[in-house]
C-alpha cells in the first residue's frame, strides 16, 4: 500500500459512523477531563481507558488518541484562563497565555492555541506517515539485542534529558522496572513477588497503577486548594478572532514549533514536554523583541502549542512501528493496546493496516473536530472551570474506582488503587516523577524478554550488544548520555 492509498483507506475507515462517533466522544471527553483543574492527559487517559473495553481495538485506539489531544487542548484552556496547568507542557503555554487573558485577550490566546495545535498536528501527521513506513521497514532488521539496547536508551534519555535530578529519575525508572517483574515470569512460569495472591499472577494492573499514580495523587494535591478566581467575562464569538497583526506573527512560530516537536516526539524518551520548552526558548531567541515574552506574546502561546501537538503525534512512530513507547503517555497507550490483545510492532503496518491508517486519518479528523467543536463549546469549558473542585473530586474518585474495577472485575484492584495512590502522592511530594515509573513498568517485561533472548543467542557473551551495529549505536548513545549527565552533575557541584 502506498502512502496515498493508505491515507485514503484510512480516511474511509475513520469516517465510518461506528468509528467516527468514538473519535468525537474521545475528543470531547478528553477536553472535558483535561479542563478539570490539575488533571493532565495522563490522568484523562487512565480515567477514560475502561470505557474502551466495550469497543473494538481500532476504535479504542482512535478514541484514546482523541482523549490524548483533547486533554492536551483542555489543559491549555485551563492554563490560559486560570494558570492551572495540568501538565508541564501546558505550563509553558500559561507563561504567555495567562498574561494575554489578563489583558482581556483570552479569546485570542485560545484561538492561537487552537490554530497552533491544529497546524502542529497536521505537520506531525506528515512526519508520522513519512517515518513510519521507513522505520517499520528498517525494523525488520532489528534483533533482540537491538530492541533491548534501544529501550534502555529510551529509559536513560527519559530520565536524564530535561530532568533536574537524573539520579531521582533513574531511581523511578528502576522502581518501575522492578514493579514490572511482579507476576508470572514468562520464561520459567515462576511466580515472582506475588506473595501468594492470585490477583497478582498477571502482574500489577496497569490501569490501577496509572489511576493511583496520576488520578488519586492529583486529586489529593488539589482538594484543599481554595476556589480560584480566573479570568471572568464572556469568551466566545467575536473575542476569539485575532487581529491582522496577530495573524501575521503566527506562521513562523507554528512552523518552527512543529518542526522541533515532530523531531523530538519521534525520538525515544523525549517527547512533548521537552519540545514545548525548547520551542518556547527558540522563539524567544529568534524574536526581535524578546522582552515581550512572559508579558503576553502571542508567539509564546503558538510555538509550544504547535510543538507539543506535533510531538504528541510523531511520538506514535516508535510506539506503532517498533512497539516501544517513547514517553509515559505512549506507554499507557501501548498498555491499552496490549489489553485489547494487539501487540504493535514492525508487522503492524502490514498486518493491521486498518488500525495504522485509521489512526493516522483519525488524527486529522479528530483535530479538525477539535477546532470545529471548540468554537461553539468554548463557553462550556469556561463555565466548567468555574465549578468548585469540591463538587467534582468525589465523583472523579468514584468513576476512577469503577473504572479500575471494570478491567478485571476484582475489588482487590480498588484497594490497590488506594495503596498506589498513597505512594503516588508521597512520590509527588518528594518530587520523584511517577511518569518515569510508569514508563519503566510498561517497558520492564519487554526489556527483560529481549535481554534474555539476546544473551541466549549470544551464548551468554555480553559482547553481542557491541557486535551488532544497530545495538552498538544505541549502547554508544546511552553511554554518551550517561557521561553527559555525570559531567553536568559535576559542574553543578563545582558551581556551588
Amino acid at each position: 500500500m502506498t502512502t496515498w492509498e493508505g491515507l485514503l483507506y484510512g480516511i474511509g475507515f475513520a469516517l465510518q459512523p461506528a468509528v467516527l462517533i468514538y473519535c468525537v466522544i474521545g475528543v470531547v471527553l478528553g477536553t472535558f477531563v483535561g479542563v478539570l483543574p490539575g488533571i493532565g492527559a495522563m490522568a484523562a487517559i487512565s480515567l477514560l481507558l475502561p470505557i474502551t473495553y466495550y469497543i473494538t481495538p481500532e476504535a479504542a485506539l482512535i478514541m484514546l488518541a482523541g482523549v490524548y489531544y483533547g486533554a492536551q487542548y483542555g489543559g491549555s484552556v485551563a492554563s490560559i484562563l486560570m494558570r492551572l496547568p495540568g501538565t508541564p507542557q501546558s505550563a509553558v503555554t500559561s507563561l504567555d497565555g495567562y498574561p494575554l487573558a489578563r489583558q482581556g485577550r483570552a479569546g485570542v490566546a485560545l484561538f492561537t492555541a487552537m490554530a497552533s495545535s491544529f497546524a502542529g498536528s497536521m505537520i506531525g501527521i506528515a512526519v508520522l506517515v513519512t517515518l513510519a513506513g521507513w522505520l517499520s521497514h528498517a525494523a525488520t532488521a532489528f534483533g533482540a539485542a537491538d530492541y533491548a539496547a534501544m529501550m534502555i536508551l529510551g529509559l536513560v534519555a527519559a530520565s536524564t534529558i530535561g530532568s533536574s535530578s537524573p539520579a531521582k529519575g533513574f531511581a523511578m525508572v528502576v522502581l518501575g522496572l522492578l514493579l514490572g517483574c511482579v507476576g508470572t515470569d514468562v520464561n520459567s512460569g515462576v511466580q515472582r513477588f506475588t506473595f501468594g495472591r492470585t490477583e497478582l499472577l498477571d502482574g500489577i494492573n496497569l490501569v490501577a497503577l496509572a489511576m493511583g499514580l496520576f488520578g488519586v495523587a492529583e486529586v489529593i494535591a488539589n482538594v484543599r486548594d481554595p476556589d480560584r478566581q480566573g479570568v471572568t467575562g464572556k469568551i466566545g464569538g467575536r473575542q476569539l478572532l485575532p487581529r491582522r497583526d496577530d495573524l501575521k506573527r503566527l506562521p513562523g512560530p507554528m512552523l518552527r514549533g512543529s518542526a522541533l516537536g515532530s523531531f523530538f516526539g519521534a525520538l525515544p524518551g523525549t517527547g512533548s514536554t521537552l519540545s514545548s520548552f525548547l520551542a518556547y526558548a527558540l522563539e524567544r531567541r529568534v524574536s526581535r523583541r524578546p522582552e515581550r515574552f512572559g508579558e503576553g506574546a502571542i508567539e509564546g502561546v503558538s510555538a509550544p502549542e504547535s510543538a507539543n501537538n506535533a510531538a504528541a503525534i510523531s511520538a506514535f512512530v516508535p510506539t506503532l512501528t517498533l512497539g516501544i513507547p517513547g514517553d509515559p503517555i505512549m506507554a499507557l497507550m501501548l498498555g491499552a493496546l496490549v489489553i485489547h490483545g494487539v501487540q504493535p510492532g514492525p508487522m503492524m503496518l502490514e498486518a493491521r493496516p486498518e488500525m495504522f491508517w485509521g489512526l493516522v486519518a483519525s488524527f486529522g479528523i479528530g483535530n479538525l473536530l477539535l477546532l470545529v467543536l471548540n468554537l461553539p463549546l468554548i463557553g462550556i469549558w469556561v463555565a466548567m472551570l468555574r465549578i468548585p473542585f469540591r463538587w467534582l473530586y468525589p465523583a472523579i474518585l468514584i468513576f476512577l474506582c469503577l473504572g479500575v474495577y471494570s478491567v478485571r472485575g476484582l475489588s482487590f484492584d480498588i484497594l490497590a488503587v488506594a495503596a498506589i495512590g498513597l505512594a503516588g502522592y508521597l512520590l509527588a511530594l518528594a518530587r520523584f516523577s511517577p511518569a518515569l515509573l510508569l514508563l519503566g513498568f510498561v517497558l520492564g517485561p519487554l526489556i527483560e524478554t529481549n535481554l534474555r533472548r539476546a544473551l541466549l543467542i549470544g551464548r551468554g557473551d555480553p559482547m553481542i550488544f557491541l557486535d551488532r551495529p544497530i545495538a552498538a549505536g544505541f549502547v554508544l548513545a546511552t553511554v554518551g548520555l550517561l557521561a553527559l549527565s555525570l559531567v553536568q552533575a559535576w559542574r553543578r557541584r563545582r558551581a556551588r
Partner: protein
Amino acid sequence: MHRDWPDILGGLALAAIGAAAAGWALAQYDIGTLRRMGPGFFPAVLGGLLTVLGLVVALPALRRRSDAPGIEPLAALAVLAAILVFGLGLFRIGLVAATAAAVLVASLAAPRPGWGWRLALAAAIALLTVLVFGLGLRMSLPLWPRLP
C-alpha cells in the same frame, strides 16, 4: 529552611525497597547464568541498582537544605479512606450506599463547612453512578445491600 527530608527519606525508602527485592529474589528464585537467566536474575540486578540509586539520592541530601513540601494529611486521609470505603463496601452494602458513603468521606477534606451540600452531593453522585454504570454500561454490580 529544613534539611532536605524528601530526598533523604525518599532515597532511603527506595534503597530499602531495592535491597529487600534483591534479597528476596536471591533467596527465592533461581538466578541462572548470563546465558540462561533464571527468573531471579533481572529482579536481583534491578534491586541492587535501586539500592545504589536510593543511596545516591539520599546521601548528598544529608548536607543540603531545602523547603519542606506542603503536605496535606487530611486531604490524603479522606481521599484514600473514601477509596477503601468504596472498595470494601461495594459488594457488602451495594453500589448506591457505597457511593454515597465514599462521597461523604471524601468530601470531609473539602474546605467548606456544613453537611447540607455534602448530603446533596452524595445523593447526586450516587444517582449519576447508577445511571452511568448500572443502567448505561450495564456493569453487573449489586445496587442495594444483600438482604439476609
